[in-house]
């Protein structure tokens, strides 16, 4: 089986890898970008893998994120990994520039809406606070990813929200 993985990390930036996995009786046969690798992989606990890679020992935890990417951690490094799908990838390249188009603002964590700072029809700037969610005793201001008009506010003050729930829409 062939897998393309896009890795992102702060220390090494972005990297594309081509991995071929094959099982044989003795374990895995793995090539990474064409290089054959001696890989010995065992599971230690749910989502935790011990990997011996040409003798180097890595303890790896894998956490799938809501956006379908994988958060992968070794003791010393953190990566974000995703399987490459050319269409999906293109759309994500410019995550640091201002968002475009109609934006659904979702709750980044479960919590309670404590303040609404805007109402439908308000003009907002990029970075302006839209509403405040309290979670784990902290008040977290949710900001607009773009300048535009508040099309609709779905959240109500005092309302508990789940992670991923749409709070308001900015166009």
């Amino acid at each position, binding site marked *: *089986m062939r*897998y393309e*993985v896009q*890795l992102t*990390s702060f*220390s*090494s*930036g972005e*990297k594309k*890898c081509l*991995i071929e*996995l094959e*099982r044989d009786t003795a*374990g*895995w046969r*793995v090539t*990474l970008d064409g290089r054959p*690798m001696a*890989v*010995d*992989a*065992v*599971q230690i*606990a*749910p*989502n*935790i*893998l011990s*990997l*011996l*890679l040409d003798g*180097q020992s*890595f303890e*790896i*935890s*894998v*956490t*799938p994120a809501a956006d*379908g*990417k*994988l958060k*992968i*951690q070794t*003791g010393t*490094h953190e990566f974000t*990994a*995703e*399987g490459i799908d050319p269409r999906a990838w293109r759309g994500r390249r410019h995550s640091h520039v201002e968002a475009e188009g109609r934006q659904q603002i979702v709750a*980044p*964590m*479960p919590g309670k809406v404590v*303040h609404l700072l805007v109402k439908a029809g308000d003009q907002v700037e990029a970075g302006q606070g839209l509403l*405040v969610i309290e*979670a*784990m*005793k*902290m*008040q*977290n*201001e949710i900001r607009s990813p773009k300048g535009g008009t508040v099309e609709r506010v779905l959240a109500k003050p005092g309302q508990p929200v789940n992670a991923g729930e749409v709070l308001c829409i900015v166009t």
Partner: protein
Amino acid sequence: MFKKILIANRGEIAVRILRACRELGIRSVAVFSDVDRKSLHVRLADEAYPIGPAPSRESYLSIDKLMDVARRAGCDALHPGYGFLAENAALPRACTDTGLTFIGPPAEAMESLGSKTAGRQLAHRADVPVVPGTNDPIENPREAQTLAHRMGYPVLLKAVAGGGGKGMRLVSNDAEFESGFRDASSEALNAFGDDRLYLEKYLYRPHHIEIQILADAHGRVVSLGERECSVQRRHQKVIEEAPSSVITPDLRKKMGDAAVRLARAGGYVNAGTVEFLVDANLNFYFLEVNTRLQVEHPVTEQVTGLDLVKLQIAIAAGHRLPFAWESITPRGHAMEVRLYAEDPDNNFFPSPGTIISRQVPGGPGIRLDDGVYEGWTVPNDYDPLLSKLIAWGNSREETIARLRRALEEYTVVGIKTNAGLFRRILDEPDFLRGEIHTKWLDELLCRPRTSVSADGDQSGSSAADAAAIAAAMWQANQWDRHSCLSASSTDQPSRWKQEGRRAQLDRLP
């Protein structure tokens, strides 16, 4: 000595206190809200009683319910921990009415020292230098804004009843004043039931240094030395250490004396902390008194060998501080990191949820003050502090090496934690040189992350290979289905693997 102590708290600090009780042969009584039935403090206490629904105001902040439990369970003392009601003078008063000993300062000392504004006034009188600012709570936001403008930005808005970085906002200019005031007072109301704020001049790159004091009921007050708490994110301490790299023996003595003077002036009894800012010229300014045990008390415990919670209990029971404790010589260096359920990659938003898997560090020089366990669901209703990881070593270098090693061993799956933030901080040259100040971390977090050394790159490159292979195996959904058999492993497929597999299948993207 007491027979039974009610612990009016939850999480790691409740566990810390009940451990002290158990070691002293005192029965511990825990309380829990509806979402905390399975919390570690409930599991480990001798007794545990429900006190209502999840919101703090209906459970952990309800003095009536606490007094009711104390009466029912036959407690003779109460320990408030930190946060919740720990600095609310109504609690020691209620204890007195119920016939309980409050393990902390008298209500009056709490009010005269604990209130930020009253504390500043007292410091003036005790000849302890203070940071410029308002000496009274702000009555009128408009006037305060005018004052701030006159004093010169940046200024800090701080909750009169505050602590732990809650109800505090840095305001850099007039435009930010209104929203800062709104957020700080709202947070203060939620956290302390008191929305009053005061204003303080914001010093340029000061160290946050605090002095741990102990005062018995017989007039003896001692200083146990300083803790360096300059590494803060949004005014919330995240790393604390002792001793501080910048404090000279002479300055330590001066600050200790000032702290003792202030405690005496306020009629203080029990353990307390006097917080100071120290500027580049080693001038120190009184900031506030925390009239309770601090989150970071283990740092002092590791260098002095003292058990502060046991000393709090002994003081509350009327024991005298023996002379010997004044001559305690600190040994080595200690450093604590606060492990929070929050996501450093996503604006440090809180990350409650179920801890699927967890590997904790151990071995020499490592202490873990834990409030959580594998399988537990971190509730959304309280502070995101999971655990405190404390390292001790003969030198600051050894301590940092141990802490870094321990953080590498620490793994949590299921919720996000800020462990990666600490790994990053512990590699920063500024931090390693001790060149830190209260805005240092906030500034660091604004800078783009740069690649590390060539050596680091190489290890990073192998780690990246391993990560890519793990990702591919995950995608293949095979590191479970095929039981991850390695060439050398002779394990049989086990229930463990099957469970792990199922857990992962559930979680596949």
